[in-house]
């Protein structure tokens, strides 16, 4: 070949126009527009007269409680997504079906207990057993998934376990459909959980209160576990750097199984709470909450426990409080028809400003 000289580089002079920090300018303008829309919408809604479609204080209280209760369930499922992502850098799309498996499995015990009257005679023991069954089935499903679907693909390119997860999700859905049929089953609710209870002057449904209390306890226990115990520290170590952790003597395989198991425990508990709230189980019940939980995990910062919890509550509150608060002010006639659009728009905006999620590092991470 001819010459071995290095190509000549010449300094290119940028024009004034090109020198401006365009990305930052666009972000700032976008931020101002968003804040403006939110502020205008919210003010107009809050100043609307009752007759024109305004909401009373009681309505806002109810929206917040409903949103928080939904958000608590999303948060518990989202923790499963975040934990697995932190350890394996992989989104476990089948986690929604882990949730469904636990709920569905516990249905048979719940139904039997209701028919025999045990559920109302001794609700605490009955619910404990039902939850234990749900947790057992969810953990079993999660661990089996890890062993059969994900472990063989530990070193495969990132996309392969992703597709496998989607396949596993469809497999589980259709297995349950094949065994139990496509129709919804009515899930019993013990009498003690029916009706309202007044907490600090706010009337709350008893089941909503139970959901919030259980979710907060679970997340606190998880936080304690991960930060204090040896296994928790091993999990954090494996999440930081798998190879070095194994060099330090940590049994990486065992830690990964424990992570999936913990995700399964939370999903199982969430499954029972969800079934008690909606009194219905069906083979498709894992799909929508799974997507909502995945969105929550991403919104809060995928891989982070606090992020998953925060993201869950944020998504829950957004979908209950957002449309009435912001969209009513603009005179839109059917605000809840735009609920999903609103929630995902917020997700996109959050990721535009903080690509790593709310509690992420502020930088994007490729999945």
């Amino acid at each position: 070949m001819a010459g071995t000289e290095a190509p000549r580089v010449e300094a290119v002079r940028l024009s004034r126009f090109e020198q401006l920090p365009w990305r930052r300018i666009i972000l700032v303008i976008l931020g101002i527009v968003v804040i403006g829309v939110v502020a205008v919408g919210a003010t107009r809604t809050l100043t609307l007269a009752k007759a024109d479609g305004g909401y009373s204080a009681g309505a806002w209280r109810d929206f917040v409680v409903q949103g928080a209760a939904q958000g608590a369930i999303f948060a518990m499922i989202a923790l499963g997504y975040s934990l697995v992502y932190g350890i394996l850098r992989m989104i476990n799309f089948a986690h929604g079906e882990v949730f469904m498996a636990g709920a569905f499995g516990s249905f048979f015990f719940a139904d039997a207990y209701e028919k025999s009257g045990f559920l109302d005679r001794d609700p605490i023991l009955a619910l404990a057993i039902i939850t234990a069954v749900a947790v057992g089935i969810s953990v079993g499903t999660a661990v089996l998934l890890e062993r059969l679907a994900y472990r063989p693909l530990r070193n495969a390119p990132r996309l392969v376990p992703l597709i496998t997860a989607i396949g596993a999700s469809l497999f589980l859905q259709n297995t349950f459909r094949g065994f139990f049929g496509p129709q919804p089953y009515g899930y019993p609710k013990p009498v003690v959980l029916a009706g309202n209870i007044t907490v600090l002057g706010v009337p709350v449904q008893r089941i909503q209160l139970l959901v919030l209390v259980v979710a907060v306890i679970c997340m606190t226990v998880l936080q304690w576990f991960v930060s204090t115990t040896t296994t928790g520290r091993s999990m954090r170590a494996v999440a930081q750097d798998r190879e070095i952790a194994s060099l330090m003597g940590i049994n990486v395989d065992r830690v990964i199984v424990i992570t999936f198991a913990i995700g399964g425990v939370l999903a199982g508990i969430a499954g029972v709470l969800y079934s008690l709230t909606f009194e219905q189980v069906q083979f498709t019940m894992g799909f929508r909450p799974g997507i909502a939980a995945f969105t929550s995990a991403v919104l809060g910062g995928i891989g982070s426990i606090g992020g998953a919890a925060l993201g869950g509550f944020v998504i829950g509150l957004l979908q209950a409080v957002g449309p009435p608060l912001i969209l009513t002010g603009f005179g839109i006639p059917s605000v809840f028809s735009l609920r999903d659009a609103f929630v995902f728009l917020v997700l996109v905006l959050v990721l535009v400003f903080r690509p790593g999620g709310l509690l992420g590092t502020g930088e994007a991470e490729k999945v």
Partner: protein
Amino acid sequence: MTRGNGPPGLAKPGWDVIVTLDPRGTEKKGGFMNHRSWLKAFALVAVLSIVAAACSNDTGGNNTGNGGVDCATVEFGCVEVGADEAINLGAAQVISGADSTLGQDQVNAINLALDYLDGTFDQKNGTLLDHPVKLTVEDELCSAEGGQTAGTALAADSSIVAVIGTSCSSAALGVADKLLGDKGILLISGSNTSPALTDPKLHNPFYARTAHNDRIQGAIVAEFALDAGQLGAKTAATIADESPYTQGLVGAFEANFEAGGGTLTGSEQVNSEDTDFKPVLRSLAEQKPDVLYFPIFVAACTLIIKQAAEIMPDTTLIVSDGCLSSDTLKNAGKAADGVWASSPDLSAFQTDEFYSGEFIPAYKAAFGSDPLSVFHAHAYDATNVVFDAIKKVAIKNDDGSLSIPRQELRDAVFATSGYKGVTGTITCLPTGDCATDVKIGLFLAPGWPVEGGKGDTSAKYTDTKSLDDVL
């Protein structure tokens, strides 16, 4: 093709030697697969024969029969039914999922119509023009995707004479009606009620229905709600989902409610797959409507009934036939008591000797239960209308085969006038609506006319209207 150095040890590339691949690597591997040229020819023949089979039509044959119809040249051709073959009737119904009772009920009715071809319900099918009739059922899943799949499957089968379906309007509108209409296959429904399907702007010429148009049902529900002797409601709120069935009903209800002097306080839309309706209901509850009308399907409607019982206990709930199912009563339990459901009033033909004396007992004997839903009689009538039309237009060939011209079959169905069916008099309009005077009844749970309904299951309010009476 690059001409670099060829594989080492072989002839050097030159103008007369074109090196493609190293022949040493292709020796002795695969055994059977070694005979590549033979294999290529075989594969080519196999592919061509599959393509030829898929593309072949039964519309060969020049049968110019009595009607002077030349099957080879007439648009959409004829269905050729061989001398020993069965007439293939198609059905696109929802037979799985939460709404399966709606479709299964109609499939049962179609089977009863096949049975009655010999004049009695003896669980042995009769014959039509000396040919047996067979039923090909496709699942339309009560959705546009299902309608697409079912429509494609049935349209591809050129032996299908006509299709009884779909169950849900969402599977028909712009999907199954277009797929089948493009092939000239008549689609006649016993349960599609969305006004959009027979709207002059959207109507497909090969689509008809024996079920009512929901503009009538929505109007009667609004009338019931406003009636001072009934609910006497002044304010109402509605919840719709994304399906054309719901949109049609809610639209008709709202128009007639406001025209009758009522006030609409809220009109929300949800997804049929949602589970959490509490914020929507709480939002609508703010204005304290007297009535909440949510004519959606079983899965979502059961959840709304349960959640509304806690959030808006003083509002009267009204649903329509999409929710009128045994599954709703079972899953909603006590919360369903006091919910009104509008539906075609079958008591009109319950006094009919044929319906109560022969049809219902035959249904119970053949399928082991009371009818699962309310459109079985409409599907039965639709099937018989098609059979009558086949009898009118089929050309009997000398060899015992039949040629059924598609366009003529469609025209014969649309020319149906004054036909006495189980559901009443059937006269088809050019836009596809064949049910004339429609009687809609309102039923109060738990007294719903389905499996699991308790107490008095007759309609508490009925009215009969035709399309000209409503907005």
